[in-house]
């Protein structure tokens, strides 16, 4: 066995008002240890106020091959964007 511990993905909230952002991964025996390791590894200089850890094998992601069917539909729905609508320049605040 090469490694005894599973892989965890780490997300850090840099400060109040911001989202948690993915910063990397680490190995730990369980979630509690993963949190402690994440604190030691990714927040040595006040980089965060909150941490999430998630087992890497619990993450489900879209693949690069999904690009067309998965993300294409929004491309032909221009009417979802405000610039689609022509409004005269003389109309204020819109």
């Amino acid at each position, binding site marked *: *066995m*090469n*490694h*005894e*511990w599973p*892989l965890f993905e780490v997300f850090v909230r840099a400060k109040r008002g911001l989202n948690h952002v993915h910063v*990397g*991964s*680490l*190995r730990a*025996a*369980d979630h509690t*240890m993963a949190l402690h390791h994440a604190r*030691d*590894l990714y927040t*040595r*200089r006040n980089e965060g106020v909150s941490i999430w850890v998630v087992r890497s094998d619990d993450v489900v*992601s879209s*693949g*690069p091959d999904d690009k067309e069917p998965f993300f294409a539909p929004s491309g032909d729905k221009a009417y979802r964007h405000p610039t689609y609508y022509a409004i005269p320049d003389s109309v204020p605040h819109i």
Partner: protein
Amino acid sequence: MLDFEDTIARDQRIEPRDPMPEAYRKTMIRQIAQHAHSEIIGMQPEGEWITRAPTLRRKAILLAKVQDEAGHGLYLYSAAETLGADRGDLTTRLIEGRQKYSSIFNYPTLTFADVGVIGWLVDGAAICNQVPLCRSSYGPYGRAMIRICKEESFHQRQGYELLMTMMRGTDVQREMVQDAVNRWWWPSLMMFGPPDGDSPNTAQSMAWKIKRHTNDELRQRFVDMSVPQAVSLGVTLPDPALRWNEERGHHDFGTPDWDELKRVISGDGPMNAARITRRRQAHEDGAWVRAAAAAHARKKAS
């Protein structure tokens, strides 16, 4: 692979699940692993001085620095794992001598002045090498390098400050600093790798944008940066050929002993065997801790 070539051409990043040529994947794993190993082995030369630091302040600084090196190694193993590598397997390769690390860590740290000179010159050279890598075409590597570069700046400055303090001290302390500079200058120049004419992989790495400047360009930049710093400090760089070249707008300097670099890389440096022995010992000594933590986690989960 059209997507890959196109992404590189547009100077965009390659992300873990994107299609990539097998040779790119292998090269990236090797580059990131060697870099990670260098950070981990790099804890040893300075770690020797933690218990012998002259003041509590210097001890706290050195502890924080060595902890950073461990952190850098872990950021990089994390990046390597996004390419399908396994960090346990990479550690095995390091311990068995199948993967390399930077030649610089195979030199001994004889006095406390070495701690300062490593910060100033070795970390200075590392910064020269690493800043362009923040723009590596491989996304996770570039992002790890951004974190690392932010922290390296503290490493270099603490080293230079340490040396300034010693230079204000006694004659013996000033001699220690000069002696350390004499021993570390040439190995620091070797950190940039062999001369361009003798670096067969450079062209491919530049094309893939995993290397942004040639070895000789970076070496020149490092020499030009270091000369005024040496003057400020009051030390002499041990190279009689070192002088300003008005025409080129750069310093001319002597040729490092490339045979020495080859010897040290191939395992025959002063400290190669000791570094690997120590790393293997730490890995073996930690085995029961890793096993116990895993057993505890299993027990709690059931």
